[in-house]
């Protein structure tokens, strides 16, 4: 219990470190020196001292609610709650951000929100299928039961790779980052945030890192070494993909998922349930 609570309190710091490590790794892959690993925390301090320009109060409040929603989902995950409920709480938190983006006048904000909605319909089913796979292996939706069951990775390897692609969409990594598209729509849904309210969005990214890699970790089941290895493997693969691929349009991302990712993961689940 105390371990869980301390994990929940520490998770923003760990998430920030993962983000800093990722920026460092990205710089080293491009043969640069890159920023310090603690760079996200410097950004955090900087943003706390900026004046906030509020577009409308609803927009600003929904940004803070987005942070709170994701933090609650993460807390439930670390306390060993029901994985389906966690999935829906996280989905609701993401929807807050989309609604906020629609409430601003900026066309970039609207384009980003539309793309976010389309891509959400693509990555959420993969997360849901992973939960189904965990249920088949462990007989429960509870995270506390999943971590003492046998590893799901040996039964569902294809689903794990599908999860990596879904994480690339969720964390807005390069082949599937049409929703953020820094060079075209300047961040999409987060464009109108500034100061303290952008800090909420910025910190939520760190929490999302923990959330997504924790789902990777659950594929290891009771084998902690395997779980950590899988999460690390996902981290490295995602960064190499991010630095070596160009951006797909959102329609092409959806097509890729419909043609390759969804059939592979369904096939994996069907074959396993047919054999056993």
């Amino acid at each position, binding site marked *: 219990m105390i371990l869980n609570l301390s994990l929940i309190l520490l998770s923003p710091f760990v998430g920030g470190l993962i983000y800093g490590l990722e*920026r460092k790794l990205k*710089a080293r892959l*491009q*043969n*640069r*020196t*890159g*920023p*310090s690993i603690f*760079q996200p*925390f*410097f*950004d*955090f*301090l*900087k943003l*706390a*001292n*900026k*004046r*906030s*320009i509020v577009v409308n109060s609803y927009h600003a409040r929904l940004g803070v609610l987005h942070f709170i929603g994701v933090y609650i989902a993460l807390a439930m995950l670390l306390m060993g709650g029901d994985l389906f409920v966690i999935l829906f709480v996280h989905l609701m938190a993401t929807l807050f951000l989309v609604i906020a983006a629609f409430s601003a006048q900026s066309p970039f904000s609207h384009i980003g929100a539309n793309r976010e909605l389309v891509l959400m319909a693509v990555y959420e089913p993969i997360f849901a299928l992973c939960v189904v796979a965990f249920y088949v292996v462990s007989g429960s939706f509870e995270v506390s039961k999943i971590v003492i069951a046998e590893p799901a990775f040996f039964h569902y390897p294809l689903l794990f790779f599908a999860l990596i692609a879904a994480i690339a969409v969720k964390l807005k990594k390069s082949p599937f980052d049409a929703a953020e598209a*820094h*060079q075209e729509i*300047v*961040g999409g849904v987060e*464009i*109108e*945030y*500034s*100061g303290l309210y*952008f800090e909420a969005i910025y910190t939520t990214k760190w929490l999302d890192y923990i959330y997504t890699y924790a789902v990777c970790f659950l594929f290891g089941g009771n084998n902690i070494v395997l779980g950590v290895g899988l999460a690390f493997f996902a981290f490295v693969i995602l960064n190499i993909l991010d630095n070596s691929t160009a951006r797909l349009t959102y329609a092409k991302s959806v097509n890729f998922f419909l043609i390759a990712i969804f059939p592979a993961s369904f096939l994996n689940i069907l074959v396993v349930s047919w054999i056993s």
Partner: protein
Amino acid sequence: MSWWQKLLKFGAKKSPWILHYNAGSCNGCDIEILACLAPKYDIERFGAINKGNPKQSDILLVTGPVTKRSRERVVELYSQMPEPKVVIAIGACTSTGGVFRGMYNVEDGLDRYIPVDVYIPGCASHPEQIIDGVAMGIEILGKKSREFEMAKKLMQTPVADSVIDRSKLVKKVGDE
């Protein structure tokens, strides 16, 4: 100054996010700015990233001798940036007007419209000079507070005001 204020100032110095605007430049200085962000000069080791969004930026890099078409945009971008903020004029044109000084279509430098903190000379400025200027800008950013900083008044009527207003020309049915 209490310890948390010192901490916030420290954070401001370590993470300058850059907004880059081309106010009619020949692209010479813009290429050098992009060279700063590329692997050889790697300005990201100071924590700087090219943000492209005025609402989340700290440093405004302007190139070009502010043309009459671009002056309203530059004032607009400046007023959308939240304080504390720093403006850096890159190149001879942006600092003084350069070879275009006195011409009918340019405005002889950026400081007629917005307060400039650092001037970087050169045509085009070297990446080393730009890095030096950004480092000076970061020093100034550490000293600034959240006080309002306003753009100077437009010296002549904006282009949009001098366009014929059709709503004043139309007449109602029955008017003489």
